[in-house]
Every structure is written in C-alpha cells, then in structure tokens.
C-alpha cells in the first residue's frame, strides 16, 4: 500500500514537472482577447488613449492633429488622447513591433497596410473593423456618433479597398498621395527638348544624358555649376515597383509568393545602370533630397511624393537650402514616367490608421471613435491642404469648402501654392490609375528589397564595381530574408526546432518510455503471481 502511494506521488511529480515547461512557455507573453463591441459607450469611465501619428516635419500638420484631439476631447470629455509624433513610418513600425509582446502598443496608430500585415502575426493584436464599420450606433455614420463622420459609401472605394487584408478590413485610410515628377522646364528647353504631353522613361534618360556635358572649366554647360544630377528618385522602392507594374511583370502574388527576381527586373536594372554610373541618375539614399537639388538648379527631373510638393520649386514655401542658393525656374508637375503612356500606372500611398486591441473593450471603442473622427471633413480637408494629399472621403472631396480650395490654385505661394495644387490635382485626376501591391506578412521587406536592387546597382556602378544581377538578386534576397516569407496557405519550412522544444519533447519521450516500462513491469509481475498461485 505504501509502495502504491509512493508511486502515485512519483507520477504526480512527473506530471507537475512536465507541466512546468508548458507554463514557462507562456511567461512574458501577454495574451490579447477577442474584441467584443460594448452595447453602450461607458461615459462614466475615463479613458486615456495613445495616438502615434506621422507628420512630414510640418508644423501645420502637428497643429491639425492637436486641434483634432482637442475637438474630439470636447465631444467626449471622458476620453483623453495622448499624441506621440513621428516623422518616419519605419520608426513607428519598429516601435509597434517592439511593443506587441508586452501588450504596450498604442491604441491608434498611423501606418501602412504592409506594416499591419506584420502586426497581425500577433494574436488579436489589431482590431478587425468589419463589424465596427457596420455597427448602427458606433459604426461609420452611426446614430450615436457625436460628429458628422462619413458613411462607408462616402469613403473613396479605391482607398478603403486598400485597407482590406486577407478578406477583412483592418484599417481606415487617412490621407492619400502618389508620386509626381517635378521638372525644371527651363533646363529641359535649354537642352533643346520640349516636354512631351506624357512623360516616358526614355525621354528622361535621354535628356539626363544630354545634361552631363561640361565646359572646359569643368562646369556643367546646362546650369554653369559644378553640380548637376539630372534625375534623382526619392523612393527607389516605388521606382522599381511602379516600373514592374507598368511592364506587367512579376512582383509578388497576393498570398506572398516572391516573383521579383525575374528577367524584366534585370532589364529595368540594365536601364538604370549606365545613367547611374555616369552620375546622370541618383537616389535620395546616395545624394539627398531631390527637392534640394531641384531648387538649386542642380536637378532637372525630381521624383518625389505629391506629399512633398511644398518643398518643390523656386517659390516653395518650405525649403532646406539657403536663399542665396535658390535658382529661379519654371516648375512643371507631371505624372511619373511611363512605358505605355496610354495605360498609365502609378502607386497609391499615404497613411492609414489602425486600432489596436486592448483588454478593456470600452477603451477600444474610444479608440475607434477617435479613429473615425480623423475622417470628418474638418480633419480631412485641413490635413489634405498641408501637402499634395487628397482627402480619403468623397464627403470631403465633394464639399464646397474643398472645391473652393482647389479653385483658388496658384492664388498665393502658401496655402494655394501652384506646385502643391498641381500635385493634388494629379492624384485626383489619376485615382483610377493608381495601384497598391499585395499585402502579406513580409510584404514590407519585399518592398524594401525592390528599392535595394536599384540602390545596389547604382552604388556598384558609381564605385566602378562589377554588376552581376544574379549575385545582386541573391544578396538582396538574403538580406531581406525573402526566402523565409510565409505563404498565404500557411505552409512553410519551419526549420529546426528550438533547443527548449527539443528538450521538452525528449523529456516527454523518456517519461512515456518509463511509464510504458512500468506498465509492462507491473503486468509481468501480475502474470508471474498468477502463474505462482495457479
């Protein structure tokens, strides 16, 4: 009897021991729960929500965020919104990733859908918005909202469509922009060229090559200066992505299969190679902001976001260069160069907003209300006016206030600065020609890899190094771990088990063997006893 008790205690001890690793595996990870929308927003309870926002180092944008918060808090006195400002989407992304394991994410965050796809790898991290959109009281255009927010139908369909990830909505669009080519018309004409109605890559590279001629003193003939980089691209990620799209070439599938390393990509890199080597083409990473060179008369074609339009041109309201360095020229804003001018394609970009899940569903509801508030006409129109952005709601776009703003284009060099207004109109006229790339866990890395291909080729050519496309493909793929991106079907190579898991499984096998041995031993004993008694 005593021996049986000892065995039972031993068995229990083994169970506890085997349970310990299981418990320890949960240590440090805070689990999120599904979000259930409360029946009623509890106004007797105080909420403090954090809003991580991005601005373009533009004080007007900061002020608009601050005003939006103050106005929202006046409507919902029990909610306090704490603003944290960033000027870089990448920094927000890194900070969110760091805060997911400790459940210290912000409540509301400006971000890109590419980034949300990574946030979603954490369980219940980002709140799915489909049911919130549709809620009759607190949803889009809901009856209990204390502000005049847009209905779902009043969102620009193309822009809200970009916030659908894996069949559900996980963000609201906040602002939209695209890229534009800002051109020094005077220098183009000085070189004997006339701008075509629609810009092509061939035209840009041809004019750029012509601009490299120098005089005997070593000055560039076209501008009489020591510096001339005819063509500068701010985002080489976008450059490669858009060229591939225009060529209808592979980039990725919707579920995350990487297609970028193809022959068309090699052709595109070949197109960039010699201009880069001749310094007729450069990038932001290599040289600096295209606008700085453009405004000094040291660049002819500067491609940057329409959200950077206030930095472009002789009369730009924002500038980093000294007054004495400014060059007087006519600025033309055109769509980015195309391969097929009859079928233009350009990227849709700009901030979206997502809501993070929290244990208190009331806190999440407060966050959702604030997120919707960012889509009111007051916020949308004010923020869109700060740069070459367009509002994401038809309600704002079609409002009298916004239409009056557009009609006053060029009437001053501040709010109605012509270059900014041209950039805005460019997107309004081309919304149907915009596209986004597929979103999946790893799509942000693929995006960076696309630009890295161009950066690598440009650097190698500038340094007089060999350019081997297969080698560059291999290096870029390894750098961004593109071979490890999980496909949408969930099947992938998981690699070797971690040491802890190996130890755990090993221990369990030993325990099972011991139990098996014990059972056999007991059976044998009983069998022997039977034999002896019979």
């Amino acid at each position: 009897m005593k021996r049986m008790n000892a065995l039972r205690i031993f068995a229990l001890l083994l169970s506890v021991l085997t349970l310990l690793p299981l418990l320890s595996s949960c240590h440090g990870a805070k689990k999120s729960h599904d979000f259930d929308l409360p029946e009623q927003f509890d106004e007797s309870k105080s909420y403090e929500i954090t809003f991580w926002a991005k601005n373009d180092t533009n004080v007007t944008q900061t002020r608009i965020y601050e005003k939006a918060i103050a106005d929202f808090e006046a409507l919902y006195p029990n909610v306090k919104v704490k603003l944290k400002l960033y000027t870089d989407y990448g920094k927000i992304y890194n900070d969110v990733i760091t805060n997911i394991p400790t459940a210290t994410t912000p409540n509301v965050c400006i971000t890109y859908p590419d980034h949300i796809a990574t946030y979603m790898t954490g369980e219940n991290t980002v709140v799915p918005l489909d049911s919130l959109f549709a809620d009759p009281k607190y949803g889009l255009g809901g009856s209990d909202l204390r502000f005049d927010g847009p209905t779902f139908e009043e969102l620009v369909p193309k822009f809200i469509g970009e916030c659908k990830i894996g069949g559900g909505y996980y963000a609201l669009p906040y602002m939209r922009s695209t890229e534009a080519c800002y051109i020094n018309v005077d220098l183009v004409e000085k070189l004997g060229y006339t701008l075509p109605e629609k810009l092509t890559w061939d035209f840009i590279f041809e004019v750029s090559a012509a601009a490299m001629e120098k005089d005997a003193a070593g000055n560039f003939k076209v501008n009489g200066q020591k510096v001339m980089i005819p063509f500068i691209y701010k985002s080489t990620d976008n450059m490669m992505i858009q060229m591939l799209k225009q060529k209808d070439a592979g980039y990725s599938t919707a579920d995350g299969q990487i297609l970028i390393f193809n022959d068309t990509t090699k052709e595109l890199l070949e197109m960039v190679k010699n201009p880069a080597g001749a310094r007729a083409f450069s990038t932001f990473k290599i040289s600096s902001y295209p606008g700085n060179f453009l405004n000094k008369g040291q660049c002819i074609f500067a491609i940057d976001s329409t959200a950077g339009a206030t930095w472009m041109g002789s009369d730009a309201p924002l500038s980093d260069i000294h007054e004495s360095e400014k060059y007087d020229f006519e600025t033309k804003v055109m769509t980015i160069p195309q391969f097929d001018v009859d079928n233009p394609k350009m990227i849709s970009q700009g901030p979206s907003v997502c809501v993070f899940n929290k244990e208190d569903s009331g806190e999440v509801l407060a966050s959702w209300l604030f997120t919707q508030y960012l889509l009111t006409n007051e916020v949308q129109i004010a923020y869109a006016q700060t740069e070459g952005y367009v509002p994401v709601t038809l309600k704002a776009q079609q409002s009298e206030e916004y239409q009056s703003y557009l009609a006053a284009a060029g009437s001053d060099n501040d709010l109605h600065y012509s270059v900014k207004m041209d950039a805005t109109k460019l997107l309004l006229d081309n919304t149907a020609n915009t596209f986004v790339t597929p979103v999946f866990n790893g799509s942000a890395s693929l995006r960076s890899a696309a630009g890295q291909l161009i950066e690598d080729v440009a650097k190698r050519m500038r340094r007089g190094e060999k350019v081997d496309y297969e080698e560059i493909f291999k290096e870029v793929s390894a750098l961004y771990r593109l071979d490890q991106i999980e496909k949408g079907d969930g099947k992938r190579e998981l690699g070797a088990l971690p040491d802890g898991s190996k130890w755990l499984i090993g221990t369990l096998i030993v325990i099972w063997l011991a139990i098996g041995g014990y059972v056999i031993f007991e059976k044998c004993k009983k069998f022997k006893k039977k034999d002896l008694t019979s």
Partner: protein
Amino acid sequence: MKRIVIALLALVMVFSCVACTNNQTTDEAEKPSASVEGSTEESTAPSTSGTEEVTVMTYEQFVAAAIDTKVCVETYVQAKQGWWEKEGQGVGTFYTQNEEGAYFLYEMPCTKAEYDQLTAGTKIRVNGYKAEWSGEVEIVDATFEILEGNFVATAKDVTALLGTDELIKSQNQFVAFKGLTVAASKNADGEDVAFLYKWDGSGQEGDDLYFKVTVGENTYSFTVESYLCGADTDVYKAVKELKVGDKIDAEGFLYWYEGVNPHITAVTPVVEG
C-alpha cells in the same frame, strides 16, 4: 490514477506542440528581418586581416579622394549618435577624429556589444567608401577593427572661421564656439522663441532642438541632435532654458547639412565681467 496521469501527459504533449507553434509566430513578429547573430560574423570580420597589406590614408589623402572611392583611415571614436537595426543588421553612427582631421561614420555595421565597446577614445581602423550627403562628407558601408591606442580630441575654437571657406576644413571635428548670442526663431504662431522642437517647431519633447545664434552680422542654425544628446542630457535641458539675447559658449561636432549645422553637445552661459 495511472489513466489520469497518462491523459494529463498526452494533453501536455499536445499543448506543448501548440505552444511551440505560437512561439514561432511571435518570434517572427518581433524580428521582421535578418537576425543579429547572422550579421555579427559579417560585421566583425574586418576587410583587412592582419596579414593583408593595409594602406592607411592621411586626412589630406582622404580629403583628396573622390566620392565613391574606397578609403581606409585610422581614427578614434569621439562620440556615438546611436545604434539601431537596419534590415535586421545592427548599425552604429559615429563621430570620429584623429590628430589630423575628423571622419563621420554613417551606419557602420556592428553588433550592440561592439557598439558598446567603441567608447570615446577607442582607436579603430575603418575601411569603407567616401560619400557625401547634402554636403556632409562621411564614410559608408564600412568595416572596422579595434586597434591599440587612445585619443580624445579637445574642442578646437572655430568661432573666427564661421562664415569663411576655411570652416569646412574642420568638418566633423569636435569644435568650440565662443561668445555667441542666442537669436530668435519664429514658431508656428510667428512668435519669437529661443529654440524649436525640430526645424520648424513641428516636433515635441525628445525631438531635435534647433536654435539660432549670431556672431557679428551672421546668424547660424545649431542643432541638439536627439540621438546624440537626448532629452535627459544636460545640453538638451540647457538649450530649453535659453532666452533670446543670452550670451553663450558652445561645443559640438561640426556637422554639415546644406551648410554648416553643428551638433551641439554642451552649452554654457557666458558670465559677463
């Protein structure tokens, strides 16, 4: 009892497998790009091993070298701007200087442990490429190895060189400015203030501080670079206390962005009399 134990163990086995799967996903979410360990080997392997012949440049040779050419210098760490992960690889940005001149090392691959090891005065040999970004000459795509030796530069007074073509010869060096007068910056409301968070006042506590100073007839923009000197440093706090018209001395690194834009590390009020 035995049946319960067996059932329990089976459950543990199932849960353990599930736990392992979840951990895999979480790890991926935390580390979206290449592992630090992966990059360590690369960054610690110097491009010039002990047996290879090394041609170390003088500062004069470095200045004469064309942009995008390979350079090799021996220099001493003076200050660090920060360490971060870029595409999963650790990189650090350093202000370095030797007895002849200074070198700004931008995003040099290194592990956090190596970054911590590179304290002020540490001698390093750096191989990389000369680059220029908005007027700032720097070394990029660099590798390094630690050498024997130690040197910490004393601040060189360049006040008299402000506004002259000579100033750029001291680019990136640890320098001092004497007898500056704090000038007004305009905030978004058009008010005169002594400093701004970010260049236009669009920032908040913890962001770079910008302030203007006059020397003679000329006004210059100085920066407290928040990666180099964050909100908890003396210089950050001191600049926030400045008033327009204050007389100050300042020290910092002679950084360039579309013209001279020193990264200030110390500010002291000038005591009249």
